[in-house]
Structure formats: C-alpha cells, structure tokens
C-alpha cells in the first residue's frame, strides 16, 4: 500500500459504492444477492495467493497460505455456483427470453 490515507479513501469510496449499488432490492433476490455478495467476499483468495507467492520457501507460510486459499476458494466457487443455480430457477419462468448466464 502506497499510503494509509489512500487506502482509507478506497475503503470509504468502496463502502459508498456498495450502499449506492444495492439501493432497492426486490425480496425475490434477497437470497441470491446475499450469496452472490458472499462469493465476492471470497476475494480474500488474492491475499492467500500473495501470501504463497511471497513466502520465499517458508514452509509455514506456504501451508497457511494454501489452507486459506482452500477456504477462500471454497467460498468463491461454491458461492458463485450456488447463486447461479438459484438464479437459473428464477429466469426459467420469469423471462420468456433466456438470458445467457455466465459461468463461474
């Protein structure tokens, strides 16, 4: 991090962005939104990867990094797939045109 105040600005703006993006959510989407957001919070994978790559052969760091990578990826992959499963059920009938969903 180049500087603390820069990081704090990023934090502040990110929070405001989150508040702004999720203004009004229809109740139908509460669960998928939550599990989708949950998957995004698994972005800790980046921290785990950094840890492993910069371990410089330290076995403890490698192991801890790999374990945390496992947990975070479980969160990410599971989260996106389960969200997709739920949303597939919604789009099955609420839309006559089938939106082509991306795959995680």
């Amino acid at each position: 991090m180049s500087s603390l105040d820069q990081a704090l600005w990023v934090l502040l703006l990110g929070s405001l962005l989150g508040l702004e993006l999720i203004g009004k959510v229809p109740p139908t989407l509460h669960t998928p939104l939550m599990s989708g957001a949950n998957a995004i919070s698994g972005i800790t994978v980046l921290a785990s990867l950094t840890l492993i790559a910069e371990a410089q052969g330290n076995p403890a760091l490698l192991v801890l990094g790999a374990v945390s990578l496992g947990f975070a990826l479980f969160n990410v992959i599971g989260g996106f797939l389960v969200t997709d499963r739920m949303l597939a059920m919604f789009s099955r009938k609420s839309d006559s045109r089938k939106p082509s969903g991306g795959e995680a």
Partner: protein
Amino acid sequence: MSALDAFGYVIDLLAVLLLALGLKGLSKVRSARSANGLAALAMGLAVAGLLIQLQPDPTAWLWIAVGTAAGGLLGLLTAQRVPMTAMPETVALFNGCGGMASLLVAVAVALFGSGDSGLVERISIVISVFVGAITFSGSIVAMGKLQGWIGTPGWTQSSVRHAVNITLALASLVGGIFMAAAAAGSGDLPLWLLVVASTLLGIGVTLPIGGADMPVVISLLNSYSGVAAAAAGFVVGSQLLIVAGAMVGAAGLILTQVMCTAMNRSLLSVLFGGALGAAAGGHVGGGGDEAGYSRIVSCSAEECAMALENAERVVFVPGYGLAVAQAQHALRELSKLLEANGSEVSYAIHPVAGRMPGHMNVLLAEADVPYEQLLEMDTINPEFPRTDVVIVLGANDVVNPDAKTDPSSPLYGMPVLEVDQARQVFVVKRSLGAGYAGIANALFELPQTAMVFGDAKAVLQQLCTELRSQGVGSKVAAAA
C-alpha cells in the same frame, strides 16, 4: 512504473468495474444471472492478473495447486449437491469459510511476516483476525442452529451471557492492543489471546439469537465477511480487496436493515436482546408444550380439501416448516389442481418468512411457481378480506394477529400478514408447540381457524389425493 505494474493497475480497475456492475445487476431480476457471471469473471480476471504480476516460483505453484484443488473441488461438490431447502445453512458455511481465510492470512502475516511491520499494518492484522474469527465462528454456529445441531442453551438467555461476552470482548481488546503496540515477533501470546477470545466471542454472540431472528444474523454475518476481506486487503496491501470487501460489507448492511425493518426490531435488540419471547412472561407457549391454548379446533385433510374445492380465492402462506418438510413441490402440485378447478391461487410472502432473506422465494421458484403469484406483504394484505381460504404452511409468527392488537406481545408492532381477515384459515402444523420464537399464536384460537396436524408435505399430498378423488384431477390430466 514498470509495464508489469501498469498492467496490474489496469486489471485491478477492470475487476473493480466488473464487480460493481455485477453487484448492481444482482439487484434486478432480469439481469441477476448474467450479473453473477460477470462478478465471477471479474474474480477470475483479478486472480489471473495477480498471478501474472507475482510470478510465483514452482514451489509456490505447487501449493497454489493444492489449495485450489481442495477448495475448488469441495466448493463445486457442495454447490451441486446441496438442496434448495438447505440454502441458509450453505450460505452460512461459505460465509464462515471466507472469514476463516481472512483470519488465516492475518495470522500467517503476524507470525511469519517479513521484517519490521508498521503500526498501521499491525492494526490491520488485529482487525482482520478479530472480524475474521467472529465471522467464522459466528457463521458456523448459525449453520449449526439452522441445521438443528445446536439449540439455544438456557444460560444464553440470562444476563450471564452479557458478562461472558463483555469479558471476551475485553480479552480481544487487550490482545489487540498488545499486538498493535509490540513490534512483530516479540512473542505471539497476544495474537493467540486475540484469536481464541474473538472466536469464542463469535460463538457467544450468535448462540443466544433465536431462530426467528436468523435472517438478520445471516445478513449481518455476510456483511462481516466483507469487512474481513477489506481488513485482509489492508494487511497484504491490496486495494482491490479493500474495494470489494467494502462493497460487500455495505451491501450486507443494507440487507440487514431491510430485515430489521420487516420485523420492526432494531439491530441492537436482535443482537443483545436474546431470543424473542424468552423474556415475555405468561404469553410464552414454551418450545414444544401445549400450554396457553384453550379453543383449538382441529380438522382432517378431508375437510380441508372440501373447503378448498369450493374456494374461489386461495392464498398460501409458506414458512420455515415448508422448507423443513421439503414440501414445495407438493405445494405446487396442489395449487395446479386448484387452478384447474377454477380457483385463483397466490402465495403471501412475508419478508422474514424462513431462515434467510428471500428463502421462500427460492424454494417456490425451485418448484416452478410463477413469479407473479408470489405477493409481498403490502400487496396481499388488502386482499385477505376477499379471500376464501388461507392455508398457513409452517409459518407462525409472521401471521400472529397479536402483533397488531396486543401491546403486551413481544411481537407487537411487527408487520404481519393479516390472514385473520380471511373467511377461513387452515394452519398446517406438526404440533401445537409454539413457533421457533416461542410465542403463542392468537390466530390458532380464532373461530375461523382450524388446525390440520401433520407434516406439511404429507398433508399437502393428502389434500391432492382428496381433491383428485373428488374428480378435480381429471381436468388437470386433460390440461397437462
């Protein structure tokens, strides 16, 4: 700035943009599915970009492969196998693992971090450990409670828990302060104190919370997992983590607020007030016993079927019991029969029905219930007076008329579905035990209410059989 750094910035910015668009799209029905894909794409992009920048050596690649294989495979299997009825537990589990990842990253940096760390870094580590540990243990307890593995122990409803939790919070604070003050590597005792105390604190604050408040807890924990990711971003110095974590944290807070409004409770009273009903004397039915009811009328599925056959307008009120009994497909079958019989069928969805926000919508969508038939509380409430038959399926507190009329009820003030306005109400329930919140329901004693005792799925199947035997089914067969 080297070309590689510039490349990293571009990738990060692109990933943030896609994540923001994904989150935005997730709040609209039409775009939700592609938005989810977009967010997943952003995540993949961020990972690829980071790997190109970091250029891990072969040993590192090996460990990355191990972690990826384990986490990815388990995630894949879980996501495919888990039934829709178990969605709240699953989200709680994923959530807890996200928290665990942040916790591990911070612990690893604290224990084996290279060189001298500044005050800012140490404070980031403290926050990351604290929030990560609470998210992890809190989510796992929430999952256990949702699965029915863990109950709500008696001591957690007394003031003992406040003493316990305050002690744990203070212990975490002491550990945190010592960690932040001391230079890295000068003894790991404060770290372990922080880890243990905050893990126990996560258990201590989640354990007392009653099942009826679970939607609030799940969305709050979801918000925490975002905060944990942002804190981990401060630890490893990644702005992308900070942005993404902050977005999830803020979005989770909004959902939490929506849930609290729907229950007419403040977040503080959910967190510190203990399980609803535990403190209310006299009115409490008590888990499982039948105290407090005097005018209960029960009826058979046959009588219920006769009422349904003649009803022009039927409203189903699903609750957690529907999920437990996995009765959503049986319910859809019954409503198809009724529609073939000329009845107008709709579903009344209370915002906090079930154990997570939007739980019922997911279940009914799985059973192919048309989206338009799911009506929100404000839309359906004026319709109840002209409704012939209401069938309450495993819902309880969200239909309790005491919430409107009895100021002494712990539910007083919570917006409820006004099913007592309908001509006839059938409540499908396994026993007369109080709801998960432990509060007696005045609806059950009203003259227009009849109880149909049994498992929701079994009762619904009986109703279908009865209706078919009265000739309703033949028209369906022709229509199908």
